[in-house]
């Protein structure tokens, strides 16, 4: 009676697609929610998690008061592909809490750091965080105001990116094609990083 096979209707059950986690980070007001919403196949959802020092598994809790528990909110969107489901997590802006949040990075394939060149400093924390934890990422400069005052190399210098190969792309967070282009740039970066060093492509 509990045999799923005999209970299954005639229709073939949907394949259980592997989930792939991608983080969309950047400071307050740089367009994370807009970008996730533009590319997601579902209306983006807001998901909440309560972080507390007691439950984070950090060895050294010196200086963290119990009352530092806080609620962080993430935007969630998804894109179902034939081979996987991309899960997009718009990270909460409270970067100062990220360090006590192991789950944020666990299982993440890569990240997109959104920047607004008029407020680059708002994205420093995300860049530092991913660099220090070796999570590959691309930098995407939001041009929804129609223009950016800086070119990619100037942005690279201003962000003092550690990896010269980290791509910097210009995009419009409101446009689906444009956000998808950023994700494609991330995939290209991951593919290039996965190439064995001795097997250069031409």
């Amino acid at each position, binding site marked *: 009676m509990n045999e799923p096979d005999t209970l299954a209707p005639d229709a073939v059950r949907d394949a259980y697609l*592997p989930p792939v986690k991608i983080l969309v980070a950047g400071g307050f007001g740089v367009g994370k929610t807009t970008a996730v919403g533009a590319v997601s196949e579902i209306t983006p959802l807001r998901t909440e*998690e309560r972080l507390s020092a007691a439950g984070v598994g950090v060895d050294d809790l010196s200086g963290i008061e119990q009352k530092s528990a806080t609620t962080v909110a993430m935007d969630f969107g998804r894109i179902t592909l034939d081979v996987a489901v991309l899960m997009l997590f718009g990270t909460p802006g409270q970067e100062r809490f990220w360090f006590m949040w192991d789950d944020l990075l666990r*299982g993440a394939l890569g990240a997109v750091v959104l920047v607004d060149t008029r407020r680059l400093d708002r994205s420093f924390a995300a860049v530092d965080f991913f660099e220090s934890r070796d999570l590959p990422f691309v930098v995407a400069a939001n041009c929804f105001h129609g223009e950016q005052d800086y070119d990619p190399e100037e942005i690279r210098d201003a962000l003092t990116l550690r990896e010269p190969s980290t791509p910097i792309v210009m995009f419009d967070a409101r446009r689906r094609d444009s956000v998808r282009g950023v994700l494609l740039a991330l995939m290209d970066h991951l593919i290039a990083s996965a190439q064995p060093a001795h097997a250069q492509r031409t």
Partner: protein
Amino acid sequence: MHSTVRAAVPADDARSIPAEWQTILRLCAGPGIAVAELAARLDMRVTPAAVLLAQLLEQGLIEHRPPMSDPDAMNIDFLRRIRSGLERA
């Protein structure tokens, strides 16, 4: 938060379980749904939702799948398939 879950049995075949569990089975009847998404749809925070899901998992009502782990994810063919799927999406 980032694992996905999927119903192991159709909700209609599990009438004797609590209504809340049936709701969950309906929500995760497709190709897998992220715990984060399920929590949002249930209007719950992620941790309580995960506790609830653990009960369903224990009963064999759902299965779960973590995100692609690093060695898997770094499989270049898989990365290329994601890229080409994204291009067509």
